[in-house]
């Protein structure tokens, strides 16, 4: 014989919750203006003193365009809200704009337009990435080059002097480059070369210019 499928009752779903958390005493007295909804005291450890207004095994509140009307109201039951509810039972033309807005915010956390509104999170993402990239560039340029171990040897004066000596001997770039700046008659650099020298002229340049 096939087992009958029985719809799970509320007590089955709620006992797991009651075992974990201590049961708070729900408000047994209904404040004036609010109606009593079945299961109000049983659900108070889960949802507090909020009215149940819709279907749902364990009701919870969400703001979404696909489920615009959740099973519970958003705000808890209050005395001031009870008076508003009594006013709501009368003519709605007597409600002021502030009353209408409080009634809306009592049932719903945010409007559907607020749900659709953009969050502007892309600015934070790009900003954080820019800060990290700046830190990286700082580290490489300052800390990375500060240690002489990481200095390339082709930057030292010895290497450059040997390099210039070799280039001048080989007479490379005679038209526009280094050999055109060197006066081979007098064995010294033409005055234009002074732009590229340091204050202390290096040894090889002195020897080259002092040669016959």
């Amino acid at each position, binding site marked *: 014989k096939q087992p009958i499928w029985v719809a799970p009752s509320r007590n089955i779903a709620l006992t797991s919750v009651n075992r974990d958390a201590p049961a708070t005493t729900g408000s047994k007295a209904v404040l004036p203006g609010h109606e009593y909804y079945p299961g109000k005291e049983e659900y108070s450890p889960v949802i507090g003193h909020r009215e149940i207004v*819709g279907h749902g095994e364990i009701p919870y509140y969400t703001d979404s365009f696909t489920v615009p*009307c959740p099973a519970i109201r958003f705000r808890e039951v209050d005395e001031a809200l009870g008076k508003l509810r009594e006013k709501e039972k009368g003519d*709605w033309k007597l409600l002021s*704009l502030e009353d209408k807005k409080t009634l809306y915010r*009592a*049932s*719903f956390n945010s409007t*559907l*337009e*607020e749900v659709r509104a953009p969050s502007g999170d892309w600015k934070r993402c790009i900003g954080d990435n820019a800060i990290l990239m700046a830190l990286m560039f700082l580290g490489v340029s300052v800390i990375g080059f500060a240690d002489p171990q990481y200095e390339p040897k082709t930057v030292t004066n010895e290497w450059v002097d040997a390099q210039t000596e070799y280039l001048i001997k080989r007479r490379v770039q005679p038209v526009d480059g280094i050999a055109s700046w060197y006066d081979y008659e007098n064995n010294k650099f033409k005055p234009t070369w002074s732009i590229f020298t340091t204050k202390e002229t290096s040894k090889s340049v002195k020897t080259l210019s002092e040669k016959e």
Partner: protein
Amino acid sequence: MFKAAAAGLRPYSETGPRPHTSLYPVVSEGTWLEKNNYAQFDGWELRQLINFVAADDGVPEPEIIIEVLKGCRNNNDYALATRFLEVVRLKGGNKMSETWPYIMQEIGPTMQELGISTLKEMGYEEPELWLENVDDM
């Protein structure tokens, strides 16, 4: 209507049983509106109906909107009426600028009768408050 039925076509309203049928007795046979008297719906059933309207692919007709608003009035729930109007407005999607003025035109008299202020008066056509998105925290 009968010729269409003979051809195998049928209107969208008769495609199948809808879950948001009421516990109350049927008023009379006829159109969908007459079969389901939305104005006498319970608060719970109205919310179920609005959730299905949000899930359906289309903007509800003004007659149905008027019945739902009357149902909200009978249940003394003003917030639900504004929420339903927001849903109807956003159901237009990219054509919101064409559908929403037409619907406001059709339901304007009933809204004034019941005392429901429009979304523009409430200021809910633009977002009012800012909330941090949970995914970005």
